[in-house]
C-alpha cells in the first residue's frame, strides 16, 4: 500500500478547509483543528490504477499565514498552496509560504497553486497578468472552486500523480 502526506498551505480564509471538505468527507471534527491547529483527513485515490492513500494536513492559521504551525510541514511529500482569487494579498502570502516550504523540506516537492473561489471570478482581484507571472516562474496552478467543485478533484489527482512519479524517480 502507498500513502502520501499532503499539506494545504495558504492565508486565512482562502478556502483550504472547504477544498478538503469538497474532496473528501472528513471524519474528525473541527474540535481537533482549533486545538491542534491542524485538521487531518484521508482519501483513497487511484493513480493510473495504483491505489494511493492521501493523508491531508489542513493547517489552520488564525489571522495570517505567519501563525501556521510549520512543524506540520515536516515529512510532507507534496503540498497545495491556496490563494483567494478575490484577495490579491493572498497570492503574495502563497508565494512566501511556497518558498518557506521549499526551504523547510530542503528539496523541491511536487506542489500546485490553487486559485480558489473561481465561482466568483468576476469579483477577482487576481488578474490574468498576475497568473501569467506564475506561468513564467513555471508554477502550475488550477482555478478551483470549493463551492462548485470545479477542478478540485483534478488538482488533488494531479498532485498525487506527480508525487508518485517523484518517488519512482
Amino acid at each position: 500500500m502507498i500513502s502520501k502526506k499532503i499539506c494545504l498551505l495558504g492565508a486565512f480564509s482562502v478556502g483550504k478547509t472547504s477544498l478538503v471538505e469538497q474532496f473528501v468527507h472528513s471524519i474528525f471534527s473541527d474540535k481537533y483543528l482549533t486545538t491542534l491547529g491542524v485538521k487531518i483527513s484521508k482519501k483513497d485515490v487511484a493513480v493510473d490504477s495504483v491505489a494511493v492513500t492521501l493523508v491531508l494536513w489542513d493547517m489552520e492559521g488564525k489571522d495570517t499565514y505567519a501563525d501556521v504551525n510549520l512543524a506540520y510541514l515536516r515529512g510532507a511529500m507534496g503540498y497545495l498552496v491556496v490563494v483567494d482569487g478575490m484577495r490579491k494579498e493572498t497570492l503574495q502570502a502563497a508565494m512566501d509560504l511556497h518558498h518557506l516550504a521549499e526551504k523547510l523540506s530542503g528539496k523541491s516537492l511536487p506542489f500546485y497553486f490553487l486559485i480558489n473561489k473561481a465561482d466568483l471570478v468576476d469579483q477577482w482581484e487576481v488578474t490574468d497578468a498576475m497568473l501569467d507571472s506564475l506561468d513564467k516562474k513555471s508554477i502550475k496552478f488550477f482555478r478551483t472552486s470549493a463551492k462548485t467543485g470545479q477542478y478540485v478533484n483534478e488538482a488533488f489527482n494531479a498532485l498525487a500523480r506527480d508525487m508518485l512519479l517523484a518517488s519512482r524517480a
Partner: protein
Amino acid sequence: MAGDLNAETAAYAPQGDDVSCGVGDHGGAMEATGDVRAEFWQDIPDAPDDAELNELRKLLLRREQIALEKLVRQEGEKNYHIQQVSDVIAEAIIARSGRDSQLRMAIEPIVDATLKNSIRKRQQDFVNVLFPLMGPTIRKSIAESFRSMLGAFSKSVEMAFSWKGLRWRFDAWRTGQSFNEIVMLHSLVYRVERVFFIHGDTGLVLAHMEGEGVGSLDAEMVSAMLTAIQDFVRDCFAKGDEGALDTLRMGEFSIFIEKSNKAYLACIVRGTPHDSFRTHLRETLELMLVEFAEDLDDFSGDTEAFSATERYLESCLVAHYAGDNEKKLPLWAKFMPVLVVLLLCGGTGYYWYTTDRFNTTMREAVQTLRLEPGLVVSHVERQKSGPWKVLALKDALARLPEDVLRRAGFDPSLFEIQTIPYLSYDASIVTKRASTGIDVPDGVEMTFDKGTLSFRGTATMAWILETREKARSLAGVEHVDMRDLRDPRMGEIAEMVRKIESVRVEFPVNKDVPVPEDTEKLQKTVDMLAVLEKRVKEMGMVMTLTIYGHADATGTEKRNYEISQARARTVAAMLYARGSSMPIAMYGMGADHASGDGGAGSASADRKAGGSVQADRRIEFRVYLARAVPAGTEALLQ
C-alpha cells in the same frame, strides 16, 4: 394419464400464476406420481400382453395390485412433497426466522443433539479444527474474567486458602496494608490492544496490528493525529528541549510512544503496564530500526517492505494478568511462610506491636487515609526522626491526602506523601467519574450502584447511544442499565412501523403494478417509509426493510415466484427512486397457500376451485430497526 395432461397444460400456460389452468389441487401431485410410476416400472420386464392371462392376473392378484398401486402412489406423493418443500425451504426459513423465534426453538434441540453426537464420535477432528480458534478465545475470556475481578474485590476471599493468598496475607500483615490493597496491587491487569509503527517525519503508518477481539480503527488517521499531537506538544511545551511526549492518558486507556528520530512505536494500552513493557518497546524498536534501516531511509509512501515487521508488532501485543508470574515452588518452600509467620508472631511480631502514643496517632492518621475513597496507601515507612513516608495510589478525582489529614485533625507535615496516579473502582469515585464524564440532561436521572450505572427518564436517541458508549468505557462501570431510558420519539416510530407493516397492496392478475385502488395506498406507504427512514436516521439508528411479494395459487410455480418477486422489486424500485438508502431485502414468496386455510367465503371457495384471488396477489412489509454503529466502534458496543 392425468399427470401428463397436467404437465402439458402447465407448459402451455405462459401467462403465469393468475391464469387458471383448470387443474384441481391434486394435479401437481398426480404429475409427480406419473413420473414415479414410469421410474418404478423401468427395470421390470413387460408382462406378456395376453387377455386371458390379464384376466387371470386380475382375479388372482387384484388385492395385491391395488395395494401395490397404493404404495407407488404414496411414494410418489412423498417425492412430490419433498420436491415442493425443497423449493421453498430456504426462503421459508429466512422468512420465518425473521418473524419469530419458534423455528429456532424447534431446531435447537435437534442441532444440539446432533452436534453432541458427532463431537463424541469424532473428537479428534473437532479438536483439530477448534484448537486454533480456541486458544485466543480462552485467552480473551481469561483476560475478561481477571478484569472483572479487579473491579470486584470481594473475590479476594477466594484467594484466602491458596498459597498465593497466604503469602499475600503475610505481606498484608507485614506491611500493615489491608489484604484487599495487596490483592489489587498484585492483580493489576494490562493489555496492549493495538500497536502502530509510524514513520517519524511523515506521520504515515508503516504497519499496525490489533489484539484479539479489538475492533479496527482507521490506522492512517490515528497515526497522523498522533504525530500531529506530538508536534503540537513539542511546539507548545518543550521548545528546543529534547523531551518528547511518551505517554498519553485517557481514562482506562493510555498510549505509549517509543520514539526514535526515524520512526516510532505507539501502543494503545488498557490498564497500567508493567515497567518492563517500556523496556520491551524500546528493545523492539531498536531491533526494527536496525532491520529496516534502509527501508526507513528510502521511505516514500510505499509500506510494502514493512509487512515484515509483523512479528515485532505481535511481540508488543502483550497482556498481563494476575497470576502470570507464578512459579513452581519446591515443597519445602511452601512451608516457609508458615514457619516465618510463627517466628514473627512469637518474637519480632511482639516488638512491632509494642507502640508508643506517637505511633498510635500516626497509625490513626494512616488509617484515615486508608478509609478515604480513591486513595490506596501502598507503603508506609516509619522514620526514627522526621516525617513518615507514605506512598499512595491516588485517583485523579480523590481528595488530596494532605487535605484529608488536615480535615481529620492530623498534621500533614508529619508525613511525606508521594502519590501515584491510579484508577479507583470505589463506588463514590466511580460516581464522581460518571458525573464529570457524562453530561446528564434535564429529564434523566443517573445512579450508580454495585458496578451498575443506571439511567432513567427521557432523552434523545443520539444522546442515549453516545452515553452508552461513554458509560461503558468508564473505569469501574461494569454494567450500564438503560432499560428505563426512553426517547419519546420512539413511540411515533413504533406507530409508523405498525402502520407500515399492516399495509397490504394488491395487484391485478399477472401484473407487477398494483390495482388502481391501491396505487395511492402504495404511494402513501412509500412516503411514510421515506419519513420513517429519515426519523430513524435522525435518531442515530438504521433500518432495514423486507418486502414480501406474494402471488395467488394459480399458474406455474416458476412464474409465481417470478411475479411475486417482481412485485416486491417494483416497490423497492419506487423507494430507491425516491433517494432511499436503506437496505431492502426482497422475497418473492410465490403462491400463498397458507393464507387460504380456514378462510370462509368466496375467496376461499375460489381458491379451492383453483381460481385466482386478488387478496393473494399482494406485497407486505416488515421493518427492522437497529442501532447505527459508527465505524470502528463495534467492539465497544458489544
